[in-house]
């Protein structure tokens, strides 16, 4: 419903529920404000937006930010009483914060150029407008900032003025603060402790080189999604700061994960590897100290996009003085994985180099032997040796956390034939590569082989390294076995080439020797379906049916069928018997 | 105390309780007992207790006060009764068994028991 009121003699229309300030702003009447923000509930604290309102014959001075517009109301924004009030309020604010440009400028507009009183603290910037408090509580829902104490002792801060981990560092307070009184200080120690090596905020660009370079929302960390999950979807109104501030209006909380059905002619399986779970090697005490980290975590730590902006720091926030790097964690070990993960030696050497280079710390590498085959690899190993890294030939046996927080690494130095122990500030576990935990499911889905370790089996280890036993399904990268980046790229290119070779032909050649079901004999028991390694059999109308395009004619189903209903074409019983008879004729 | 179930219960309770604070309200009757050493020796305390009991039994609103020796020790225990602007009447040699009749005749029916009276003071001069 529209209502009419007068502002400074000018008749204006307003919507019901609008405040006088909103109406005046729309009508082009300037009213100074400090504690007002359109996204936040008005507080009426700074009292700068006072106007004179004449209503039912009664005149009163009110704050326009809180006063609801009412029909027939007469608003005067610059009467002498209003101007004097604003001027005095600005005098008082300028006396409190003499060096804040926003207040200096506003005060100058009202003829106040010098603070009439001496400030208690000339560096004071906070005018206690409470915008940050409202943003933190009403908008973000972090409930970190609030007022404490009263009267002239009133201050804004976290509870008991103590640092709190409840602060998520979102910075909403700094954005709304009119006087620049709040600064976000990235406290590396705090950040590291709050979110070790993970993304620093709930919304982030996945990695620096990401394409497309757009942020994603971590729904487990996002206040809004957490609220939604907590209330089973009933509430989803917390925070919303990103949406509020995004000028492109690109934030959409309603987006959902989608499943797409796409028909394709070929599939490249490139599901990658899983980092070895260091808890499976308890002798290394992973999890017992924040300074025992995996190789991948070290990558995050030393990355310039990481939580410490690339500085190598311990959990205490200081650079380590000594670092131990343990090779073969989860590799070449009969208790975990027997195979060599191939990449760890080289990344461990690189990390040793980074630690030396960035911190100058003593580095101890515990290794069995260094595997550095390939171009320039051995040369790099030599360079790292020259950089003063201590190489201890012998697998790290045990890591223990000392009472003072230092880490004691024990191992046998095979060169010296004696047990060695070093006390260090940080331990990097050179964790190996393992197959993805769902490798068995994936192998079944695509009808491809899977070895004992969980890596997918290629059609031929030497001649067909990217193909699988299922036509049209190819392998690329570490899902097939541990390999480093150049090898993975080469492998992937090969898979792509295979796919192109297949698809450009436009047709596929299939083997004529496939299985066929005699529907008269089939009883529909279904025993053949799970045994088919190529998922070529399905039950159609209660009976088994073989997809000739998938069938490789291996004969497993033929042998399995209890009622003898499946025959391998070109290898029917009659043909085989005939062949036997033919052979026997010559005997 | 049990719950009041209706307004009637409240009224009944109030009536019952009113005696409890009647000492702080004006009543029409003041009974004064001489409680000097002489009076107590002659049994004034027993007389006063008898008066209090009798007043309570009959649910009479009256003030009972004590005074010291007024000099007529030979006639103790002495009890004065005064109602409103009436004369203040002094009874002598009062014993507890005389109390019911005193209350009945003088306090309730405002009839002075002349045979026990030993003195009168004009109510106005009081």
């Amino acid at each position, binding site marked *: 419903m529209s209502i009419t009121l007068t502002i400074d003699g000018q008749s204006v229309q307003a919507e019901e529920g609008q405040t006088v300030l909103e109406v005046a702003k729309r009508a082009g009447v300037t009213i100074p404000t400090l504690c007002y923000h359109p996204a936040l509930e008005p507080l009426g604290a700074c009292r700068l937006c006072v106007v004179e309102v004449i209503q039912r014959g009664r005149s009163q001075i009110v704050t326009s930010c809180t006063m609801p517009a009412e029909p027939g109301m007469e608003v005067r924004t610059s009467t002498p009483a209003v101007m004097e009030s604003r001027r005095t309020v600005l005098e008082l604010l300028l006396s409190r914060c003499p060096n804040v440009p926003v207040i200096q400028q506003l005060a100058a507009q009202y003829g106040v150029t010098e603070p009439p009183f001496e400030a208690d603290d000339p560096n004071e910037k906070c005018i206690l407008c409470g915008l940050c408090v409202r943003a933190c509580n009403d908008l973000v829902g972090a409930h970190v900032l609030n007022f404490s104490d009263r009267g002239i002792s009133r201050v804004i801060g976290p509870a008991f003025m103590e640092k709190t981990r409840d602060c998520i560092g979102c910075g909403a307070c700094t954005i709304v603060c009119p006087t620049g009184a709040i600064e976000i200080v990235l406290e590396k120690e705090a950040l590291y402790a709050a979110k070790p090596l993970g993304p620093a905020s709930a919304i982030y660009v996945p990695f620096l080189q990401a394409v497309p370079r757009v942020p994603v929302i971590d729904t487990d960390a996002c206040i809004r999604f957490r609220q939604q999950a907590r209330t089973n979807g009933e509430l989803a109104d917390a925070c919303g700061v990103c949406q509020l501030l995004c000028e492109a209006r690109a934030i959409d909380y309603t987006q959902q994960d989608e499943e797409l059905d796409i028909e394709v002619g070929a599939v490249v399986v490139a599901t990658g590897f899983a980092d070895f779970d260091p808890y499976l090697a308890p002798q290394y005490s992973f999890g017992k100290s924040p300074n025992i980290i995996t190789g991948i975590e070290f990558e995050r730590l030393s990355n310039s996009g990481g939580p410490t902006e690339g500085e190598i720091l311990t959990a205490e926030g200081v650079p380590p003085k000594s670092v131990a790097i343990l090779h073969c964690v989860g590799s070449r070990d009969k208790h975990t994985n027997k195979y060599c993960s191939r990449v760890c030696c080289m990344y461990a050497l690189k990390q040793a180099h980074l630690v030396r280079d960035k911190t100058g710390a003593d580095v101890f590498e515990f290794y069995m032997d260094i595997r550095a085959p390939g171009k320039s690899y051995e040369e790099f190993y030599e360079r790292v040796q020259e950089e003063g890294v201590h190489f201890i030939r012998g697998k790290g046996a045990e890591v223990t956390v000392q009472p003072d927080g230092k880490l004691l690494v024990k191992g046998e130095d095979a060169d010296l034939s004696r047990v060695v122990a070093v006390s260090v500030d940080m331990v990097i576990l050179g964790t190996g590569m393992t197959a993805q935990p769902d490798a068995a499911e994936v192998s079944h889905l695509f009808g491809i082989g899977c070895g004992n370790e969980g890596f997918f089996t290629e059609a031929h280890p030497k001649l067909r390294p990217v193909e699988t036993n299922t036509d049209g399904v190819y392998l690329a990268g570490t899902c097939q076995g541990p390999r480093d980046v150049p090898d993975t790229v080469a492998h992937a290119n090969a898979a792509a080439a295979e796919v192109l070779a297949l698809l450009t032909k436009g047709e596929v050649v299939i083997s004529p020797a496939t299985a066929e079901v005699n529907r008269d004999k089939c009883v529909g028991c279904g025993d053949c379906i799970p045994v088919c390694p190529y998922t070529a059999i399905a039950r159609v109308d209660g009976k088994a049916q073989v997809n000739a395009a998938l069938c490789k004619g291996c004969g497993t189903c033929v042998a399995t069928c209890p009622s003898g209903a499946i025959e391998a074409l070109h290898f029917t019983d009659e043909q085989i018997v005939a062949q036997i008879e033919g052979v026997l004729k010559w005997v | 105390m049990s719950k009041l179930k209706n307004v009637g219960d409240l009224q009944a309770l109030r009536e019952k309780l009113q005696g409890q604070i009647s000492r702080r309200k004006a009543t029409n009757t003041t009974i004064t007992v001489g*409680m000097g050493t002489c009076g107590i020796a002659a049994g004034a305390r027993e007389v006063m207790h008898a008066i209090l009991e009798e007043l*309570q039994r009959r649910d009479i609103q009256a003030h009972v006060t004590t005074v010291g020796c007024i000099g007529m020790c030979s006639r103790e225990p002495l009890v004065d009764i005064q109602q409103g602007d009436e004369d203040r009447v002094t009874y002598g040699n009062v014993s507890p068994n005389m109390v019911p009749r005193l209350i009945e005749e003088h306090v309730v029916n405002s009839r002075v028991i002349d045979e026990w009276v030993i003195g009168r003071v004009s109510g106005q001069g009081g």
Partner: protein
Amino acid sequence: MVEYRADVLVGCEHGEHPDLVGALKAEIERRNLGAEINVVETGCRGFCAMGPILLIEPEGIIYCAVKAADIPEVVEETLVKGRVVERLAYQEPVTHQRICHYEDIPFYHKQMRLVLRNCGMVDPRSIEEYIASGGYSALEKVLTTMTPDEVIQAITVSGLRGRGGAGFPTGRKWSSTKHAHGECRYIVANGDEGDPGAFMDRSMMEGDPYAILEGMTIGAYAIENVREGYIYVRDEYPLAVENLRLAIERATEMGLLGDHILGSDFSFHIKIVRGAGAFVCGESSALMQSLEGSVGEPRPKHVHATESGLWGQPTALNNVETWANVPLIINMGAGEYAKIGTTNSKGTKAFCLVGKVRHTGLIEVPMGMTLREIVYDIGGGPQEGREIKAIQTGGPSGGCIPSHLLDLPVDYESLAEVGSMMGSGGMIVMDDTNCMVDVARYFLDFLKDESCGKCTPCREGIKRMLDILTKIVTGNGEMSDLDKLERIARTVQRASLCALGKTSPNPVLSTLRYYRDEYEAHILQKRCPAGVCRDLITYNILEAKCTGCGRCLRNCPRKAITGERRKLHVIDQALCIKCGICKENCVFDAIEVS
């Protein structure tokens, strides 16, 4: 049940002599009078200057300033022998006559104790005594003979206005609450009394808690759809909290509170919420915030609490004194009640008469009584040789009324007209030894900590006004400061968020209005006419009067006084901190302030 012959009423239990009741009981026991004499602990009887007070009924004998050591004599003489202990009776200050009967003392004689009728007369912990003295007869009348609308009508006709300070008509408040839309309605009793020197509400909550409960219950009945009421009491009043809690418990047990009150369909519950003692929580919107569990800070009141108050529901919030008036009005009849007081201010008002009068205490007078009657007849006038200078009413938000306006009738409008306010009922009398600049400074000093600090004018304005006043009382003031002071005061008055802020400059503005000469003396002559402001005075020993007794020398905390025995003593001005202890101790009046 034992029928006693006498009641001994002991007030002021939490005063300086907490052993009085014990001593009395022990003495009565020792003399075997336990069956005859009833000792009753009551609330405050208001005659605080003379406390502790014993009242012996039915004789109506009142003893002042009784000590435990006086008890045997009181028991022997009065309770056994019926004689008055003259030396404990009240002594009339002018004629020095002893007055032994309660009603004869002028302090009580001039008062009209209606709301305070039970304070000091019944045991506040006994619902039986309250009922016996006519308690709950108003509720009875309301439940049996009046409709809710008739109750509101009666309150409206009675002319009762809020006793908390603003004086809003209570009937109108109840009516708007009743007609506002909401799921339910609430009523609240404001017992967050925070003014320095005021204790009316405390005395009522301690001394007659049932009257407040009864008033609220009647209010709940009248406003309808009120299931819950709250009493907000500051936690600095432990006895009030205890007595109210006990009263709620007992009233609920008796069926006078809770579900189905007196067997009717009307149900109402009362809860006590303890405040943490912030002055600002006496402001209604801050009080409700605090009640809801938030920080007590005022909200802009474009929507009244009667529309959207506690938890967004229509709420009738009244001061405890207002609630205590309700049963009185119902019992007296609205018409009778309206006969008391003036045209626009009806009924009586309780005041805490404190400061430089002989008889300080809690008093209740009909509206429209003049300040002179209150100060001279009830308060006994100024101390010997002193002169009344001003009367400060309305607490820190009130103003100072000069002595030439002593014939001003005390009602809402008259007080506002002269720049002060009724407030909750603080009344501080000042004489010629009070410096008005210092008084204004005192109140601002109180307010600088008690302002919630939410809005700029109140928070910063009070601080800066205080800065200026401090400058003036230390002798550094300039005449231009007075203009500055007035301008800030005007802005604080105009632009502050809540009533507390808007009224906070009243002490400054009213003293500036009536005592500008004192300000000017401080600024121009660097002189404090009342001899209060330490930086502007010196203490000197008069040669003519000093006997060299050495009392001042012994008591001086800074050893600033020297002198041989029986010879003139001298104050070393460099060491003197102007504490005034020497002057207080000098029995020869030989120390002069200049």
